[in-house]
């Protein structure tokens, strides 16, 4: 269990993938572990260990750490371990997030191949993400094929709110996890109808810290900041605003009742991300919604144009090959 944010795994649920209970009473679901059967057993043990660790969580800070290695890396021990006998060193040089990034690349390749615009919506809890999404879907659903992947720690509430609009939605419950990862999204993609050139909203877990580090394969992250929060949120949680392409400043209809300095909030966002785009919106009154929808339309057009270009290039290549074949056949 993560001592910083409570993050952990082992309880991920994707709608349609049910948990089951064994004779001895242990329950687990067969959701998306990235590992096939042979490794599966090992992972189950690991998860059981998580549970124990969780119970012992409070003791974690008293856990005695071996501090005689604090200055490791300054001396010769950097690459050679004294007293090495049968042991050997294996060079790895792999990014810790490489597994997630591999899955993200697979998702991204799928989106690109099919001309899908995928947006990863990130914010703190209560910023109005789902309300904004519902409002946007109502405006868009007549003209654009779209779908939603909902991430929350628990409950199916948000997916139900989305489905009430008539749009297809699938809920991922992350259990102990504090963010969606690319593998969860990949699993959800198998279960949701997603036509070519459609729009996919991925509503991440309400959390301004962890989701910033996990690429889901989306085209862009869209950060939602509401005016009932502080202007300094972009400075307090810079990773997220740095990773976002667009910031939606939501609940702007409430500005007359608040001491929220819009210019300062925008300046703070630009300080951590000079190229961030910003649109002021209100999901309640519809203010600014047209700008947000126009932004989506622009990005979809760019993706569609790129896809057409790729298809033209492939067709051109195929025509050349056919010419070559015809020449050989004489």
């Amino acid at each position, binding site marked *: 269990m993560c001592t*910083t944010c409570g993050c952990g795994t082992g309880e991920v649920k994707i709608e349609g993938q049910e948990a089951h209970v064994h004779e001895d009473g242990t329950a687990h679901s067969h959701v998306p572990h990235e590992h096939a059967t042979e490794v599966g057993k090992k992972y189950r*043990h690991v998860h059981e260990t998580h549970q124990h660790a969780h119970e012992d969580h409070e003791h974690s*800070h008293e856990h005695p750490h071996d501090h005689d290695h604090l200055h490791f890396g300054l001396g010769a021990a950097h690459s050679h*371990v004294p007293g090495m006998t049968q042991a050997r*060193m*294996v060079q*790895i040089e792999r990014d810790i*997030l490489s597994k*997630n990034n591999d899955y993200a690349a697979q998702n991204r390749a799928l989106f690109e191949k099919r001309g899908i615009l995928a947006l990863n919506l990130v914010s703190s809890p209560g910023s109005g993400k789902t309300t904004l999404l519902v409002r946007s879907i109502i405006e868009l659903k007549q003209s654009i094929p779209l779908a939603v992947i909902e991430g929350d720690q628990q409950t199916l509430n948000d997916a139900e709110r989305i489905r009430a609009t008539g749009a297809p939605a699938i809920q991922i419950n992350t259990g102990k996890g504090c963010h969606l990862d690319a593998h969860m999204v990949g699993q959800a993609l198998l279960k949701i109808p997603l036509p070519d050139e459609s729009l996919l909203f991925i509503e991440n877990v309400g959390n301004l810290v962890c989701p910033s*580090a996990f690429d889901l394969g989306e085209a862009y992250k869209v950060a939602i900041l509401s005016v009932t929060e502080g202007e300094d949120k972009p400075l307090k949680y810079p990773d997220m605003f740095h990773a976002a392409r667009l910031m939606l400043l939501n609940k702007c209809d409430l500005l007359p009742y608040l001491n929220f300095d819009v210019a300062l909030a925008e300046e703070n966002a630009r300080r951590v991300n000079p190229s961030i785009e910003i649109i002021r919106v209100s999901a309640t009154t519809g203010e600014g919604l047209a700008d947000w929808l126009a932004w989506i339309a622009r990005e979809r057009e760019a993706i569609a144009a790129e896809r057409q270009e790729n298809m033209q290039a492939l067709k051109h290549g195929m025509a050349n090959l056919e010419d070559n074949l015809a020449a050989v056949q004489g």
Partner: protein
Amino acid sequence: MHEMSLAEGVLQIIEDAARSQGFTKVKTVFLEIGQLASVEVEAMRFCFDVVLNGSIAEGAKLEIVSLPGSGWCMKCATTVPIVEQYGACPQCGSYQVQPVGGTEMRVKELEVE
């Protein structure tokens, strides 16, 4: 920030390496963590012990090499040492500093048998 997931990422990398390199026991894991990587080293150590329990790396020592942060300041047009992401340039005070080093989170090497 999400040290549990990172520790699980480390375990996946170890298991991949065990399959390809044919080792059965990991004695020491060497990580490189940049100072700008938003990783709490103490949280990482705790999660590491928990996640590696029951794996081929159970009981392995964790050695963390901290890499210093550095950034490219647009105004000074030079590389400057920085201790926080999105912080000001120590020379001119500008916030137009692009981190160039210290964001790493990498499994460097393993001592195995």
